[in-house]
């Protein structure tokens, strides 16, 4: 539809603060989708969201089967060992059908598309992480202040 009179979005800065599979993907999909539309995009990973860019963890993100009412699963069932892995593999299969790549490939795609990827300094310090812990797509570890500078003039989306 061509009824848009508002100013088009030119830049988005997306904050990813959760480390579950369902906590990470919306941010990745939105960042990639922004680049596809020619919108500048940056991703800022903070708190447990950092798991998505830590080399040793990024390939093993899991769906939360406990404390997640939208799973429609009783808590005691969700807590059974292996349930989270099972739900994760089901969801990954569905995503693959939609051509949604695994986290590592997705980050490479976004980065190659010109999307910027940052880690939050406060979280990096809190979890005692080092630059070498991150995947090569991470452009820098930046402070909140630097994040706001980079986000200037655009939209900020918290996920």
């Amino acid at each position, binding site marked *: *539809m*061509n009824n848009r009179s508002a100013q088009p979005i030119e830049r988005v800065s997306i904050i990813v603060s959760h480390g579950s599979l369902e906590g990470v993907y919306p941010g990745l*999909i939105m960042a*990639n*989708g922004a*680049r*596809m*539309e*020619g919108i500048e995009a940056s991703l800022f990973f903070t708190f447990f969201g950092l798991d998505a860019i830590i080399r040793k963890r990024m390939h093993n993100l899991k769906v939360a089967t406990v404390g997640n009412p939208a799973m429609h699963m009783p808590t005691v069932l969700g807590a059974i060992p292996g349930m989270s892995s099972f739900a994760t593999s089901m969801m990954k299969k569905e995503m693959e059908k*939609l*051509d*949604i*790549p695994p986290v590592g*490939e997705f980050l*490479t*795609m976004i980065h*190659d*598309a*010109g999307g910027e990827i940052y880690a939050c300094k406060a979280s990096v310090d809190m979890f005692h992480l080092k630059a070498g812990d991150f995947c090569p797509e991470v452009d820098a570890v930046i402070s909140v202040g630097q994040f706001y500078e980079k986000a200037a003039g655009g939209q900020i989306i918290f996920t």
Partner: protein
Amino acid sequence: METVILAGKTLALDADGNLANRHDWNEEIAREIAAIEGIPELTAQHWSVINFMRAVFEKEGDAPSIRRLTKESGVDTKTLYQLFPKGPAKKAARIAGLPKPKGCI
């Protein structure tokens, strides 16, 4: 319905400004759309993306995702964004005479 004059023909456009009928399309029209979109010359790499998109659309009824373009057209993501600045899937589909891709990826 909006129309546009390309390569001497008056052609119908869809709501997104892409060609309404992909059978109106030919290579000369592609070059003219590309010029309007700020791509002065279509190189062999542009053509391999355009032809791949048309082939996929012909078979499946939707243009391929960026991921599929990257994996199957032989042109990597970085190059795609250089060839079609400001949104490769959208722009390449328009130049290929196809509707805007429906997918999110």
